[in-house]
């Protein structure tokens, strides 16, 4: 049986662990709030962008000459998979579920005879995927979102994608990330980035609202194709940025839940150890008393 000193040391160490996990929980909670605010603030841009793209795509119809970012290359051979994870661990199953999803996705594509290229954003994804997929992993970006997530970080990734796409290095790009549903629930999301799936809007949403109630059609300046060519890379950046915000909020939520659990487990452990400690202490006292009494009797 462990000695009293050993038990005391263990209780203290678990107490220290509990202090750390409960502090991490607080930090995650405040970061989560900030991340949610940021995600909230970024929403208007994405919404309006979507509305504009919808009207543009509708105006353009299926006319030829649509930018390749929208219409695709007409092939489906080379897939680029972008996996968005966090840089740090201690957030429960957050990264594990993305990595698992990514692995399943890539294996499915490989089994279908496609060529797959892998881009990881975030250190955890890189570390966990490089074992199996090192030969197809061509780039890993980490250190995102420090000290806070900026739009440029999304834009940089988008620029990289657009350049590669223009150079014909892949046909389809997919982004795998965790969507933030609530502070404790994240949803694994597989989103196609290129070619961009056009949001389907109702005819009412597509035309400009007018006071007369008669829907009017937008004029374009310069023409549709040029605006679309301008808008699509920008939209890609918005999509990536949005995913980053969602993922960041999800990470903090997951960490908060994980740390809450850890704090609770540490508390249970301390109770159990204290009980054992007290029992042992009493046993020691009893034993010492018996020793004294039997010693006195022997004299």
């Amino acid at each position, binding site marked *: 049986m462990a000695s009293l000193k050993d038990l005391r040391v263990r209780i203290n160490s678990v107490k220290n662990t509990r202090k750390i996990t409960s502090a991490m929980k607080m930090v995650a909670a405040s970061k989560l709030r900030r991340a949610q605010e940021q995600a909230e603030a970024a929403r208007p841009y994405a919404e309006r962008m979507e509305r504009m793209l919808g*009207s543009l795509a509708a105006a353009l119809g299926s006319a030829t000459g649509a930018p390749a970012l929208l219409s695709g290359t007409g092939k489906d051979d080379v897939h680029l998979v972008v996996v968005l994870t966090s840089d740090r661990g201690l957030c429960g199953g957050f990264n594990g579920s993305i990595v698992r999803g990514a692995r399943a996705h890539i294996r499915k594509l490989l089994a279908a005879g496609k060529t797959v290229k892998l881009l990881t954003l975030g250190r955890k994804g890189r570390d966990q995927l490089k074992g199996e997929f090192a030969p197809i992993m061509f780039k890993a970006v980490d250190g995102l979102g420090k000290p806070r997530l900026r739009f440029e970080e999304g834009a940089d990734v988008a620029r990289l994608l657009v350049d590669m796409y223009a150079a014909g290095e892949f046909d389809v790009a997919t982004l795998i990330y965790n969507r933030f549903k609530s502070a404790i629930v994240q949803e694994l999301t597989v989103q196609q980035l290129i070619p961009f799936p056009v949001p389907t809007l109702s005819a009412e949403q597509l*035309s400009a609202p007018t006071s007369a109630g008669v829907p009017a059609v*937008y*004029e*374009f*300046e310069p023409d549709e194709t*040029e*605006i679309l060519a*301008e808008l699509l890379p920008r939209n890609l950046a918005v999509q990536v940025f949005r995913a980053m915000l969602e993922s960041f909020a999800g990470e903090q939520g997951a960490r908060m839940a994980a740390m809450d659990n850890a704090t609770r487990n540490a508390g249970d452990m301390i109770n159990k150890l204290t009980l054992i400690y007290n029992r042992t202490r009493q046993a020691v006292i009893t034993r010492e008393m018996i020793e004294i009494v039997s010693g006195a009797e022997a004299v």
Partner: protein
Amino acid sequence: MADSKVTFELVAPERLLVSADVDMVVVPGTEGDFGVLPGHAPLIAAVRAGVIDIYEGGLESKSITQRIFVAGGVAEVTETRCTVLAEQAAPVGDLKAADAQARLEAARSRVTEAGADEIARDRALKDVAIAEAMLAAIAA
């Protein structure tokens, strides 16, 4: 009169910068500046780097109340609304000539660096244009 106002919104990817009912907005389009008054025909236009002027103070006696620099973007105009999606935006008063000058020089050196790489060159040229527009906005 609520009808004679334009709801102007300036949105950056990170947040909504301006949302106000104003009398007129002048937006620097790629094909030339255009003013938006209430009842403007629906329009979607590309925006170049330049200054957006916001006019307020009644239809007759309106004057510029805010000048905001944008580094390009897209504008959507309807009868009652004018929305500008801008990548970067800042009130002209907050711009610093030294920063803009530094940016211009950095962009110019990148143009020379880019050499034959057309994509990089285009991008650098675009940055030069933005920095030049910024300087012009400060000087005006």
